[in-house]
């Protein structure tokens, strides 16, 4: 089963995603694809906190901050994957070093890579972030990123059997349903 989860910051997305991935794995291979590339001490602390939260859940952690297709071979076919987050992966792909200039082809590439990853996995849970409802007129770069993330989100939501929005630790199912 493919599940897509989005919502605002600190609304319970990662917790729901972990519980769903664990349940969907039914004791089989369970992978956590970590997409965040630490840039400072704050990021490192956040990553340590996430690792501690996953302890004892049985996840094998694979670092995959970019080029998601290269990760596909590291997953055994039929395994269960938790990808957290689409947001960080797209940001790494869209603004690559050394100059961090915007790559407008990144959203399509990331969407295709993520869909291929989903085909390889038996079950997959994608986690993204809902960043679309603020009253701000952004520059072309930020607006391009929002548009790009929405493109990836919509492609994933279309391909998934279940789509959830997390709000205050509660879940709104926009499509299908998955039980942890």
């Amino acid at each position, binding site marked *: 089963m493919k599940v897509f989860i989005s919502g605002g910051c600190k609304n319970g997305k990662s917790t729901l995603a972990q519980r769903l991935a664990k349940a969907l794995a039914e004791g089989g291979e369970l992978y956590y694809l970590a997409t965040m590339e630490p840039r400072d001490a704050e990021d490192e602390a956040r990553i340590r906190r996430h690792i501690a939260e996953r302890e004892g859940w049985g996840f094998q952690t694979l670092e995959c901050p970019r080029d998601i297709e290269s990760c596909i071979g590291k997953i055994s076919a039929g395994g269960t994957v938790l990808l957290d987050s689409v947001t960080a992966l797209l940001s790494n792909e869209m603004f690559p070093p050394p100059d961090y200039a915007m790559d407008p082809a990144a959203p399509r590439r990331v969407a295709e890579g993520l869909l291929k990853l989903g085909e390889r996995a038996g079950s997959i849970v994608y986690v993204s972030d809902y960043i679309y409802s603020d*009253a701000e007129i952004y520059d072309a770069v930020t607006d391009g990123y929002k548009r790009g993330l929405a493109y990836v989100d919509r492609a994933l939501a*279309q391909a998934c059997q279940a789509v959830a929005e997390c709000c205050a630790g509660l879940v709104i199912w926009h499509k299908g349903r998955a039980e942890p």
Partner: protein
Amino acid sequence: MHLIIGGAFQGKLDYAVKKYGLSEGDIFECSESGEIEFKKCVNHLERFTLGCVRRGLEPAEVFMSSPELWRDRILICEDISSGVVPVDAVMRAWREANGRLLNWLSPQAESVTRLFCGLPQVLK
């Protein structure tokens, strides 16, 4: 009137085009000029509200004064209500005026649909 709301780039117009069989000529795209033309479908109402705010007008009042113009239309508006309170006073006024307009329109709508990542959620 059918009201379609949701965050930026969530597929509101795509949904309206498919659901109501709209063609390009049926759609009026609002700009920040504050001008509005009630074609079959009015898109980006939030830009109209920004235009109103910049001209010192209350967008909800513009709608109240001429219900016959939009009673059988499809209105699409971005939800701009959920970010940090903007530092800029005009942006703050815009966010509130847009919310007031949606609050005023939704009770009069035949249907209200929110788009989330391309998926419609019927609120009314």
